């Protein structure tokens, strides 16, 4: 039986959705607003909303003190690099699990996910020692390896879910037509899974972009991304909210823009297969 939504229900649902949306957006809005205040105004109680002396001095200070573009470039290289490397492994892994499952496939999937449950600080010293001995400390290559391994379980899980939606018959038909395994994956499977792959990529880029534990602990200057840039603006003694807000606004701006333009793909990918 189909339930019909009343106009009142529709309106109240819309109002509720707007309230939730605004609540989620408010911290970002407040951060951007604070970045245009002076340090004193940033901490004044009660806080000033719009009627304050707008200033760009925090952005000027941040530009003067830090090389923003160096940090931003490192973030781009780490996020995109770890995603591309991860995709190569995750696609092949998810293909095997989705189309050639064994008795242990489910266990293997769960085991992969369980590695995400360990607190990273538990393996900090061993990984730090490996990085030190292999000369990987403060290198982008080392960071890409860590970020890719860290996000691999999620990538495999997401791609496995998408691949399961694709009928096996189509792949079998391709095989009967003489397609080799690489051709089957590249020309048949991947085009059909584009929304899923796109959303996996985007999610992985966001996760790698925001990752702060490893990027702070394994870098000093050459490979330091935007997380290190933000961390340098928090101070134990003295006012710093306005400058920190300016630095944070600059750090999240690129990912916000990417997210804004790709939101259609992201939503489509994330809800792919959700309604059966």
């Amino acid at each position, binding site marked *: 039986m189909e339930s019909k939504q009343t106009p009142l229900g529709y309106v109240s649902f819309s109002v509720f959705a707007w309230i939730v949306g605004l609540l989620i957006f408010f911290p970002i809005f407040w951060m951007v607003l604070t970045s245009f205040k002076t*340090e*004193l105004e940033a*901490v*004044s*109680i009660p806080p000033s909303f719009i009627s304050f002396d707008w200033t760009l001095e925090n952005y000027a200070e941040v530009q003067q*003190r830090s090389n923003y573009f160096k940090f931003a470039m*490192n973030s*781009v*290289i780490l996020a*995109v*690099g770890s995603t*591309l490397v991860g995709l190569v492994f995750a696609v092949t892994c998810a293909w095997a699990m989705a189309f050639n499952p064994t008795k242990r496939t489910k266990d293997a999937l769960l085991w992969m996910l369980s590695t995400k449950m360990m607190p990273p600080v538990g393996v*900090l*010293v061993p990984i*730090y*020692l490996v990085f*030190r001995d292999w000369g990987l*400390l*403060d*290198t*982008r*290559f080392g960071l*890409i390896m860590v970020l890719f391994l860290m996000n691999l379980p999620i990538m495999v899980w997401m791609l496995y879910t998408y691949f399961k939606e694709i009928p096996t018959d189509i792949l079998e038909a391709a095989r009967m037509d003489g397609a080799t395994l690489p051709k089957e994956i590249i020309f048949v499977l991947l085009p059909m899974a584009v929304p899923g792959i796109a959303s996996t990529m985007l999610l992985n880029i966001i996760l790698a972009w925001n990752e702060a534990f490893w990027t*702070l*602990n394994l870098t*000093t*200057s050459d*490979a*330091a991304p935007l997380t*290190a840039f933000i*961390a*340098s*603006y*928090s*101070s*134990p*003694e*003295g*006012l*710093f909210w306005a400058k920190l807000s300016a630095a944070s606004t600059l750090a999240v701006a690129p990912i916000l823009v990417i997210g804004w333009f790709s939101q259609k793909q992201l939503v489509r990918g994330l809800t792919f297969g959700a309604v059966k």
Partner: protein
Amino acid sequence: MKRVMGVALCALLAGGVAHANAETKLTIATVNNGDMIRMQKLTDDFTSKNPDISLEWVTLEENTLRQRVTTDIATKGGQYDVMTIGTYEVPIWAEKGWLAPLDNLGSDYDVDDLMPAIRSAVSNDGQLYAAPFYGESSMMMYRTDLFEAAGIEINGRLTWDQTLEIAKKLHKPDEGVYGICLRGKAGWGENMALITTMGNAFGARLFDENWNPTFDSAEWKNALDMYTNVLGNYGPPGATSNGFNENLSLFNSGKCGMWIDATVAASFVTNPKESKVADKVGFTEAPCAVTCTGANWLWAWNLGIPMGSQKVEAAQKFISWATSKAYLELVASKEGWANVPPGTRMSLYQNPKYLEAAPFADETLLAIDSADPINSTLEPKPYVGVQFAAIPEFQGIGTTVGQQFSAALAGQMSVEEALSAAQSSTDRTMRKAGYY
């Protein structure tokens, strides 16, 4: 798509290529404090005098920096050539052989000009293992206008009982003024820094001569009773969230009658650009109780060289420059005498230009001079440190006990329960660590 992949691959490869560099590059890890940032901006002065040395700054938030440099030095990672470390780390790391001794700071460095209390805090067996960049103690900052209006005069050093009475008089939450602001946020460097000095003043100590914790003593109960009473009843609401910066904001907005905290706060609260009450602030020493011994803390941010560094000579040159008398004059010439890093050199407190520019100089000197990390309790103790015990276990102990004291302030447990929990958790840690 091919082009995108190509660009990404090139970028990846570019990341792996190391840049050849003929000059000595020093990587310096530091906290984001005003004085440190000022030093960063004056880098050109050092590099012009030492053209063969370049400086790479890594500025981090205090807790991140502590975690980062501890991991690096403990594993001999060699990522940093100069580290900014506190007076808590220096004796422990020097004892473990993690820090290079500073034995070549130059003939004109004048090591005897360093304040004795600070110098002893960064030395081990008489050898300097870090050079102090700026030092601080704790003192009381108060609103002269509110004191005058309430008819309060300060004659001599206050006691905590008198402080409580003054807080009662000044406390007018309806008018947006709270009697006293103190640290309430849990942490060994937050509420514990203050509460330990209060404990010292009430005759308590962290450990007895045999390393047994003493939180079950009457002295600790008196100290914690006073803390929860004065801050809980006459402090701002939500005091358990307040650390240095939160209290600084409250004081600068004119909401605190008194504030007991780090002496470096004096330059912030008297700066008209940051404070609404810049011209209405007075300074006096931190209150005593049964004793004044250990009633104010001692802390310094220092520059040290990890043992793993391959550039010890260049690093010593830099440290010598950054902590010299000439550096103080350099800052004064660029930013004024009020902005020079305080609390490390005795000559600064004999400089009439500094005394004129910094109205808080006398109280700062008095506070630092009276803080002795070795004799900071009424009864004998086995540890070094005023507001901490310089043993590796203290960070964990201080954080746990700080959480219990914070819970007592919030009313989630009684003072007796908090002290009992502190006693048993500390006893467990010390027993496990093999102290007895």
